[in-house]
């Protein structure tokens, strides 16, 4: 009997397992993790990045990382949203308002030794977005451009087809406004550059571990002076409770995209944590497909507007962490006005409207996207609409399926918000202009304000602009292609180690002014 040998071999096996395990940890752990840098800022992202190419970039995680890496001709001041110089130290507008001359800073260097910034790079960046072969989402943003000239290495002259009062918004440091290096993009190719970007910003892209983290390091030769931290580590932590615990335990420094009301309350109570909040540049809207019977009837859309108790949703579901929305613009916009048709919650009126329209018995799908910040809102919407007699069915689609359904243009409803710059054209053109029919965010197929949008672009001064946009808001809130549900508020929390942080309204963040105590 070999009992003795087996007895020993068993315990030896377990022992070997233990030793092997420890050895593996020893070997792999330091290799898998770079050594912590002296002043590394650790920021929480809610989901992973996918694409850092300015022509295709969307979603706030991508935009936040990109904010660290790229610059634009101009930028928004983080606190005031004023448009101030970035790569262009100054610019002139011609008398007739169609010629913009930008004077670039001198000696701005691209990351990773790709040379010096020149006017040609600016021209390349914009022409690239406009090129149909690129298939950029932001073609519409630069559609006003007639031609781009570069008389010398530091001057860019952009001629517009017609005067456009909001043109400067289009060349700020967001999305299509980010300038890329001709040399880097042509050498690396679009796809490679999208995940290994080269920019002129305060941080240099270092690495991306899919699903886990993104690392950027300080750009010592940044034209505005080097950042005060040595690098930024963006960690993907989906669950907000876990992220909050990580913040209070000191595992992360800045908690970006804080949205859960319970977590907000918890962090507000913590003396070692500072919570910033301000109104965002976007509203969340319930978009109705007007080609889908019976949503083509204005009375039905009005009924839906009267039938959703938006104030209760803000108080009950969001515990007061959102603001009321009366149109697609929020108080963060210069062009904001509350002088629009208002619809207070009135279920009796809603039912009367439905009866008048002869629609007392129709059913409607309420469609949401799984794992998005907006997947919660479908429940109270469906519940409220059921209460006024509309048979609702909730469909939470997984993101891929949702994108497919939306681009097909056949879904009856959608929850849409246009996150980004304090440029009123952003939400208005994206959701209300004919040029944004699917594929695009105008799933209502609304075409009622295109001429008003053109008027607004032609406006000569701030006052005229305000009046023009007010007309757009009034018309859209009369026609009701969409129901504004709430105006978003942005929350960011950070530990007391973090100094100098300024929160913007764009739903991105910039670590440049931040230092660590």
């Amino acid at each position: 009997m070999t009992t003795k040998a087996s007895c020993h071999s068993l315990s030896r096996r377990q022992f070997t397992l233990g030793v092997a395990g420890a050895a593996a940890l020893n070997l792999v752990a330091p290799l898998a993790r770079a050594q912590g840098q002296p002043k590394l800022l650790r920021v929480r992202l809610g989901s992973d990045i996918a694409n850092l190419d300015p022509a295709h970039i969307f979603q706030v995680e991508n935009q936040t990382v990109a904010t660290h890496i790229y610059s634009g001709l101009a930028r928004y001041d983080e606190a005031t949203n004023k448009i101030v110089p970035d790569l262009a130290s100054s610019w002139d507008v011609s008398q007739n308002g169609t010629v913009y001359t930008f004077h670039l800073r001198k000696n701005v260097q691209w990351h990773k030794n790709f040379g010096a910034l020149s006017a040609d790079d600016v021209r390349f960046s914009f022409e690239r977005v406009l090129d149909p072969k690129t298939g950029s989402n932001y073609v519409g943003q630069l559609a006003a451009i007639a031609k781009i000239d570069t008389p010398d290495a530091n001057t860019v002259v952009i001629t517009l087809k017609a005067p456009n009062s909001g043109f400067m918004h289009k060349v700020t440091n967001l999305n299509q406004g980010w300038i890329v290096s001709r040399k880097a993009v042509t050498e690396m190719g679009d796809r490679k550059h999208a995940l290994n970007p080269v920019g002129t910003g305060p941080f240099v892209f270092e690495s991306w571990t899919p699903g886990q983290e993104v690392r950027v390091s300080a750009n010592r030769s940044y034209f505005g002076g080097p950042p005060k931290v040595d690098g930024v580590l963006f960690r993907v932590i989906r669950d907000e409770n876990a992220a909050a615990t990580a913040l209070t335990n000191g595992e992360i420094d800045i908690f970006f995209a804080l949205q859960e009301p319970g977590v907000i309350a918890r962090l507000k109570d913590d003396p070692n944590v500072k919570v910033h909040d301000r109104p965002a540049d976007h509203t969340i809207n319930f978009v109705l497909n007007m080609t889908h019977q019976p949503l083509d009837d204005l009375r039905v859309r009005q009924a839906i507007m009267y039938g959703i108790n938006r104030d209760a949703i803000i108080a009950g579901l969001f515990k007061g962490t959102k603001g009321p929305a009366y149109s697609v613009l929020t108080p963060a916009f210069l062009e904001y006005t509350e002088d629009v048709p208002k619809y207070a919650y009135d279920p009796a009126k809603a039912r009367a409207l439905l009866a008048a329209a002869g629609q007392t018995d129709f059913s409607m799908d309420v469609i949401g996207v799984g794992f998005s910040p907006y997947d919660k809102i479908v429940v109270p919407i469906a519940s409220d609409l059921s209460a006024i007699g509309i048979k609702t069915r909730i469909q939470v689609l997984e993101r891929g399926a949702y994108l497919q359904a939306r681009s097909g243009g056949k879904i009856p409803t959608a929850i849409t918000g246009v996150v980004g710059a304090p440029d009123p054209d952003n939400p208005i053109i994206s959701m209300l202009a004919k040029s944004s029919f699917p594929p695009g965010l105008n799933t209502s197929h609304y075409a009622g304000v295109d001429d008003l949008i053109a008027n607004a672009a032609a406006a000569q001064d701030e006052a005229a602009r305000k009046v023009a946009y007010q007309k757009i808001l009034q018309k859209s809130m009369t026609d009701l292609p969409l129901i504004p549900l709430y105006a978003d508020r942005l929350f960011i929390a950070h530990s007391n180690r973090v100094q100098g942080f300024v929160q913007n309204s764009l739903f991105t963040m910039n670590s440049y002014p931040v230092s660590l105590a």
Partner: protein
Amino acid sequence: MSSPAASLNPAHRNGNASWRRYARHPGFMTGLVILAAMVIIALGARWIAPYSPVAADMTNTLAAPSAAHWFGTDQYGRDVLSRLVWGTGISLQVAFSVMVISIVLGVALGSAAAFFDGWLARVLVAIIDILLAFPGFLLALALVAARGSSLSSVIWAIAIAFAPRVAAVMRAVVLTIRPRMFIEASTSIGMARWKILLVHVVPNSLPPVIVVATVGAANAVLGEAGLSYLGLGVQPPAPTWGNVIADGQGFLASHPMISLSAGACIALLVIAFNLLGDGLRDTLDPQMRRRADARTL
């Protein structure tokens, strides 16, 4: 007292599995009682649940447990208790459907693999082995991703992922019974092989398969919960227990009752199935019975 030789006789097995043996087994009876209670709750959900499981109430979100709401309300103001009550039916539906489907598929595949000879059997055995190589939950996940998230696709995904395990058990059992069956069959008047399979082999090999099936039911409840947690299960606002845990996860620190209570419900049902399985195994396994007697020596 049963002797080892007698316990090999399948007829004996059936004879000894009288219900009195089950009734004396405390684990089995506990499991049965729990399961029966759950079935009653599921059938009577409409009358037992105090509120509708999907009616949102924005004025009373995240309420703490109280007399009006025993487990409080969730973030939409829905009564958690009512959601748990209605969720019982869904979990039972998943458990029993998966059990039935995986038994049918697994028995067919496993007995065919064991009963026939030659290349057909080898192919079937290879299929079982290949499917067994995929971790069950992963296979179910991929299947649900492929077919979309609905109750029926979740059931089919989990059932298909579990069927190979039933097949493996079935095959092992049939392989042990097969020699005896052929001796009997050779004396019969040329009965077709598949008839022998159906009439003799399958009924006699069912006991171990039923035990595996209870494991499958337990797995199904846990699998549905896991898929819902990942967002791939039955979609909201369906009140599945997995969805309730997922909904409550965001409020774990402030309102742990939501996720905790749903988790407890899942555990209770799974415990019931496991107790049933243990009880069946104990009562049907002759060696186990002999062991109980052996201790008195």
